[in-house]
């Protein structure tokens, strides 16, 4: 464990030995330029938002890291795509990474050590910005209309992959009666298609549905979750009568804790 004395100047230090999953998680939220880092004793969160209608957060618990030290609550903004590029400096080679942050105004230092070459190491410094706290979306856990589904990652990935790419909107229907989980594509002339999964299906790890919810989302936003979906082992889909959709991806890595990527997508409202 780190002690204060080892890193007197740094407000935040962490180390990860195998960056593969971490890198995949960062890449999956690169749909927007700026991300907000929020680091506390509970873990590290990186949040990305677009147009206030879709928000993605990557978060890791302290036990995910080999080393994790933070002083108070640190929050800063950086460009996530630059961070993703720095992590991909060694291509597919597995590296260890160390993140260091001195505090307000200081850049985020990234030290990369490839495992296959002991003589090489890279140091990057990414400028940080002051940011406001990201908007917090939350689904009321006590709501009577809260529906929660746990689905196997690869199977859901197949379903999403086969959805019509030309469609503009996807309509999600979750219901205690059949159809239990249905995605309909809308907006394509000459064809409407839908995919239904029964609640008894093997791919449904958990199906907790109180009442029927139907909501529409922009297909473009749902497709932003593709990268996370491809690497996720499990996906939790939560929604309630408000229509706010929470997609919770669990990225599992061997010998490591899970990384969670959480997407909030706001529904399209009928203006009539």
């Amino acid at each position, binding site marked *: 464990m780190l002690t204060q004395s080892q890193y007197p100047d740094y407000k935040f230090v962490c180390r990860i030995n195998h960056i593969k999953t971490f890198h995949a998680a960062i890449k999956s939220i690169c749909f927007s330029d700026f991300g907000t880092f929020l680091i506390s004793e509970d873990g590290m969160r990186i949040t990305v938002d677009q147009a206030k209608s879709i928000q993605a957060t990557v978060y890791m618990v302290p036990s995910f890291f080999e080393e994790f030290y933070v002083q108070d609550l640190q929050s800063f903004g950086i460009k996530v795509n630059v961070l993703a590029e720095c992590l991909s400096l060694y291509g597919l080679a597995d590296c260890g990474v160390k993140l260091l942050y001195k505090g307000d105004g200081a850049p985020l230092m990234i030290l990369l050590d490839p495992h296959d070459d002991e003589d090489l190491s890279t140091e990057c410094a990414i400028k940080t910005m002051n940011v406001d706290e990201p908007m917090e979306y939350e689904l009321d856990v006590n709501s009577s209309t809260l529906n929660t589904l746990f689905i196997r990652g690869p*199977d859901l990935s*197949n*379903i999403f992959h*086969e959805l*019509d790419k030309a469609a503009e909107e996807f309509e999600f229907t979750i219901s205690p009666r059949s*159809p239990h989980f249905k995605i309909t594509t809308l907006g*394509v*002339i*000459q*064809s*409407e*298609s*839908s*995919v*239904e*999964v*029964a609640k*008894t*299906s*093997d*791919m449904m790890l958990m199906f907790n549905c109180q009442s029927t919810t139907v909501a529409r989302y922009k297909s473009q936003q749902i497709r932003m979750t593709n990268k996370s979906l491809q690497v996720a082992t499990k996906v939790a889909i939560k929604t309630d009568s408000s229509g706010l959709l929470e997609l919770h991806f669990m990225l599992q890595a061997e010998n490591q804790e899970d990384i969670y990527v959480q997407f909030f997508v706001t529904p399209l409202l009928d203006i009539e």
Partner: protein
Amino acid sequence: MKCTLEGNNAKVIAKAIQSLSKVGKELYIEADQQGLQLRAINATHSAVGSISFQRCMFETYNLPSSQYCYCKISMKVCLATFRNMKQVEHCEMSIVENHTKLQVKLRCKLETMKQALIAIIDDQNINAAVSKEASPNVIRGDFKLFMEISNNFNTNEEELTLEVDSNSLAAKNYIEGARVSDRFMRSQLKLKSSEFDQYLVTKNTVITFCIREFRAFLLFAETLNAPLNLEFNEAGDPFLLKINKHQEIECILIMSTLSPDDVSFSEDNCQRELTVDETPDSQQVVSKKRKNSQPIEANAPEKRRVEPDDSLMESNSSLSNSLFQFRPSEPPSVEAVRQLADVDTLMVIPDEADEEALMLAAADAAMATQMPKTNPNPSVPSSTEVCFYNTEDTTIVDQQQHLEEEEDDEEESIPQSPEREQRKIRTIFSRCFQSTYVPREPSPNSQVYVPNSDTED
């Protein structure tokens, strides 16, 4: 109409749709008491593909009270629905919503159900008239053999020419005597009749058809693991490709072929006189068949040519390249013959077509008479050998020896193109030698929907 299919049969239907998608942009579905037929026709109406599934392939099969129904749907949408069939266990197709939509329900593994509602465009249908008489030439072979033939040619080849006689079949990507550019690589694959399951050629012929649709159906034959039947008569007549699997699945592809009028010197087998016919058909045909520039330097015939009509002997010179240059990049010759559907008849402007026809015939005749007989006789390569010809080769094959020396190892080559002669032809066809072409009238290849209403013209 409502029918259901078990998973594997549904996969076959999906493959059929994929093959038909390479033929046409719309899928015609017809359901009657015998079963379900899927058809497609290509854009130029020169190929019609029809795949029929007998009733016994379906689990349940319900027809409306009229006992038949047909509809036309967009191929693109249909393809998207039937794209991923790996997980499919059961398929149901029905026409719903007062005959405006086709509903396809695919029940997949893991209790997933995919459903698609495809809008029906209209209820047109294609009728492909197939002659019930047996064709003079029937060739049957395993799909693997035809795959080999097809793989011999580039994927961007447009046409395939089959030259058949009683003992052998030659597959080529060119027509002898056709005007092609110097860069054109000609390849030929010769097969003995014994390679095929059944080889019945009663009429030696050279027939050319579009390879794209051929390959599409070949792909389907591969899925079915069934042999292909080729039935044809002669150049200009329809070419039939049939696949039959257990009497349950029957496929037929009818393609139009190049008329011999376009093929200046196909063979001795096509003993036709190069006369200029006044009928609209041949005018259409002749005016549309144009290959790219430098026709004269390209291959001249290999075999001894038919003696052309005496009347054409007057135009006893070869015409310069500029004659053909004002028709750049013509549509592929598959458009030339439309012997099937009576649609899209072209309005040919008689004067120009006449002139062109005459010019073409003249050129043909000229080439016929000017073959240098200087080189030794090469012989036909042995069966299944692929030959590549150099456009500058100048040998000519004597047809007698050609048949006798089939087993020799020397290569065939193309005779040298005839020398240019400056004759009085220039004064007769003076306009042909002008370097620029001013299209005062619309080209005969195009369809005139509305005549020019400009009062000044």
